[in-house]
């Protein structure tokens, strides 16, 4: 057996900042798993957005399943500009942080498009969803080599936000 699930990079914000970028991601793994606990400084609703390889053009599409304690919904959108957490973002001014997991499967192959499985949760958000599961298609066949994480509405990710990127290598 081969021990795997290795931490590749991690970032813990000691002060608010606009984005976190994990770059020069090795292609030596099979899957990537990105986990985060984050909050926006925006006092309104906000989301986390991830740009793959720095690309913010309309290459992202998604299908989602979401609930907020009183309603459940499913939808699909195309021509998106990032992988978005859909209002799961913690609550500014409180200790409420959203928690997230993104699975980037077979991220380094150069033959197929990239599919990402997302799960996000928080409980005190106002005006958004509390539980979200999404499948994103990133319409590129190139390997994923960088992930840039930022808020969608700004201005900054709050201090205390953390992100860790892991690599899983199949035998």
């Amino acid at each position, binding site marked *: *057996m*081969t*021990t*795997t*699930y*290795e*931490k590749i990079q991690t970032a813990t914000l000691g002060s608010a900042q606009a984005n976190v970028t994990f770059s020069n991601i090795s292609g030596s793994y*099979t*899957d990537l798993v990105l986990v985060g606990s984050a909050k926006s400084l925006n006092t309104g609703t906000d989301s986390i957005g991830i740009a793959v390889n720095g690309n913010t053009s309309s290459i992202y*599409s*998604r*299908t*989602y*399943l979401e609930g907020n304690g009183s309603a*459940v*919904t*499913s*939808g*699909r959108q*195309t021509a998106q500009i990032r992988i978005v957490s859909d209002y799961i973002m913690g609550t500014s001014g409180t200790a409420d942080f959203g928690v997230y997991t993104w*699975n980037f*499967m*077979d991220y380094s*192959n150069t*033959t*197929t*498009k990239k*599919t*990402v*499985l997302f*799960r996000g949760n928080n409980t005190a958000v106002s005006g958004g969803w509390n539980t979200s*599961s*999404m*499948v*994103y*298609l990133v*319409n590129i*066949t190139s390997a994923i080599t960088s992930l840039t994480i930022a808020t969608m509405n700004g201005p900054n990710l709050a201090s205390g936000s953390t992100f860790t990127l892991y690599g*899983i*290598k*199949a*035998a």
Partner: protein
Amino acid sequence: MSFARSIADLFSKETSGATDAEVTAAISTHNTSANGHVKRGNTASRPGSPVIGDLYYNTEIKDLEEYTEDGWLIVAKQVPRVPVIGTATLGGSNNVSVSFTPSQYGQPSSLYTVQSNPGSYTATGSSSPITVLGTNLTIGTSYTFRVKSSGTYGDSSYSSYSSSITPVSLSSYESIESVTVGSGGQAIVNFTNIPSTFSHLQIRAFTIGTTHAYFTIRANNDSSSNYAWQQLSADGASVTTDAGINSSTMFCGQGSGSSTAGAVTVVDLLDYKNVNKFKTFRTITGFDTNGAGGIWYRSGLWMNTNAINSLSVVSNNLFGQYSVIALYGIKG
């Protein structure tokens, strides 16, 4: 000033309290012959009991040698002195940081090389410490490390070895087996002889193919009606739930029906070797093809208390080329 004292001055010897005879005798013991010339001869004839700083003209290599802490070295073209090995410490990724102290004597060194034993894995750097990547080392194996320096005229000898250090397993998550589907596709992926050394299993799959719509899982090759499943699903417009009981199949992963945009699936199988419980599978799966898509949460039950030692991942038709299905074990 006597000839002997002038020779002594040449080598910076303190001679104020000695007679000329004593000075001559002392110098000739090490550096010079009685006539004041530096001792000479072949390698085999070097002085038998040299002290640090003694000079010797080696007629074999036709060059002046000095006796140093590292032995006889050519004065004008010395390699750097041997560094002093320090400690080897483990980093967070089983990288080993090897410290050392460069010699403060002799020729300067611009490069240091650390070497492991066993394995002879090397890493280089311009200063201490130098890191040997954990990817080169085997978990559970004891390693020692030594270091050498490199300069304009070559390499020093290696130092003595450090104390030993043993990389440890940093993760309880291990890869057991994986299959990447080749051209022509594949209907079933079998994981057999699953070890019982883990607490839980996880299947991670990226599946693709124009005829692949979903996959089921069979445990221990049981194809009788011993399975049940439930699901919560969303197709981009509505949310539904469904179930099946006493089924011969247990729906798990979804397919995309596409040759370019695949479906992804993560299946958790907890306590798989317990012989007192039915086995429950937890699955999240889905796809998006920029126009179609869905996401499914599934619970599956194999109504059998046997420990699971094999899993069959079965496509409704064919897993397409480039599909990747991998089995992992998680220790608890």
